């Protein structure tokens, strides 16, 4: 398989002023693959996703999506192809827009017809009741807000999804629905994902491979099978796996 990876990251560094937050990381994700990113709080996971999405200007290295090198500016086609679900769903939803408006906006920006049917389907896909459609974010529960964020990311049919803790605000039954939905979309549309989660069971469920970060660096990349079997080389990974198994009891 000499196929071009969908996402290629080479020697990426990110600075915020004088702090060096992401240090020389490299990885690639094949089309249709889901790649996991785990590691301790503050290790740089969200920063990696935000930088790929074009939200952090201060980076060096090479990044490419679908074979195209990413520059400092992203065009409209990029924003249709690549969608991100943010860790903090409240902050990412406009407080004065109803759910209907939030979902209609990407359709208008990208000139996609059929808004009515698409919005109804998107709500259904993330198991939101129709009554939620004309509410404002503050009138929804935490898990309902996160589902709006996921619906918004999916509504314009992206080919790459960057998911930052997409299910940590969801209850286990909605989490199961969202994880099943992501598996289905991956099969139906060859969706490529990078998934950040602190929940190793969620990572193992969706990802073929994952990278473990610590202090801005990738300390190891391992497969789902190695993760489940506890065959990790780095001590940080070993600790995380041991704690997960302990919690599963």
């Amino acid at each position: 398989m000499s196929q071009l990876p969908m996402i290629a990251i080479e020697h990426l560094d990110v600075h915020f002023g004088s702090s060096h937050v992401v240090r020389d990381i490299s990885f690639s994700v094949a089309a249709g693959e889901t790649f996991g990113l785990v590691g301790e709080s503050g290790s740089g996971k969200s920063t990696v996703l935000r930088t790929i999405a074009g939200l952090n200007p201060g980076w060096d290295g090479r990044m490419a999506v679908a074979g195209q090198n990413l520059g400092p500016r992203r065009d409209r086609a990029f924003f249709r192809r690549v969608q991100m679900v943010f860790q903090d769903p409240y902050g990412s939803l406009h407080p004065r827009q109803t759910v209907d408006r939030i979902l209609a906006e990407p359709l208008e920006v990208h000139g996609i017809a059929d808004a009515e049917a698409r919005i109804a389907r998107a709500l259904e896909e993330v198991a939101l009741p129709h009554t939620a459609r004309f509410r404002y974010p503050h009138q929804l529960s935490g898990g309902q807000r996160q589902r709006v964020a996921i619906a918004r990311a999916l509504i314009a049919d992206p080919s790459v999804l960057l998911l930052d803790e997409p299910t940590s605000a969801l209850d286990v039954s909605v989490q199961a629905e969202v994880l099943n939905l992501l598996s289905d979309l991956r099969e139906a549309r060859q969706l490529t994902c990078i998934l950040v989660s602190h929940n190793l069971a969620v990572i193992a469920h969706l990802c073929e491979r994952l990278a473990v970060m610590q202090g801005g660096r990738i300390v190891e990349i391992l497969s789902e099978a190695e993760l489940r079997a506890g065959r990790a080389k780095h001590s940080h990974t070993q600790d995380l796996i041991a704690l997960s198994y302990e919690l599963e009891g």
Partner: protein
Amino acid sequence: MSGMNNGNLVEIRDLRVDFPNPSGFTQAVRGISFSMGREKLGIVGESGSGKSVTGRALMRLLPQAARVRAEALRFDGIDVLGASERQMRTLRGGRIGLIMQDPKYSLNPVMTVGRQISEAWLAHNRSGSGGGGKREARDAALTLLEQVRIRDPKRVLGSYPHEVSGGMGQRVMIAMMLAPNPDLLIADEPTSALDASVQAEILKLIEDLVSARGMGLMLISHDLPLVARFCDRVVVMYAGQVMEELPARDLHRAQHAYTRGLLDCMPSLSKKRARLPTLTRDAAWLERHA
């Protein structure tokens, strides 16, 4: 200051919360009852079941438009629905701490993290005998950040909320709520964005406060295994009702089909499953529970 309350820190009887909608009212909480002492009570249940609304009702933090009724809604003997606004202000952020589900939303975006924690500390310590000063407040803030295992507390003190990571924001919020030494901590998904090792350390810290200071903890969480390990008792909510209440250590043996359904749909690290089962909701669950 405690009233006559049979040792109950919180007493909730037949609490109902309705929100107006264009055609009438939506019932978010439909007659729930439970009480708790200085213990660790877990509240679990699916999204939208009314967990956060219950916590906010106890602090009288719901929007004006919400209709809140109860036979009893008491904190340490104080009638929350009848209390003056002034009384409520001394409870909030003083005797009752609330760690909210959206940490970034609950932090002030234009004030440094250090100043927010210091002010929370000062609000409590000024009124006390100590009469804390600015310098002391800063030291206290630094200690609290260390306690919640922030790696570089000095830098974080001077950071604004958007400059810290998701998990750091969650811990800042926890530090802020612990600053005034509350009697009751309502923690709404406090560790949902934290990795297992930090989560374990934070829960240990809360545990120490519960046993050393006799603080009560209401832990709202989706994480059933976590609640089972950490809490004394669990209240399971569905559609604004309490479905069952049981000792936390028995949670994995719960009998109710709803609770069983929640336990079964979690992915597992040890067992691989192609598809996860989802919850099949039974109409009978919506009927009134005693």
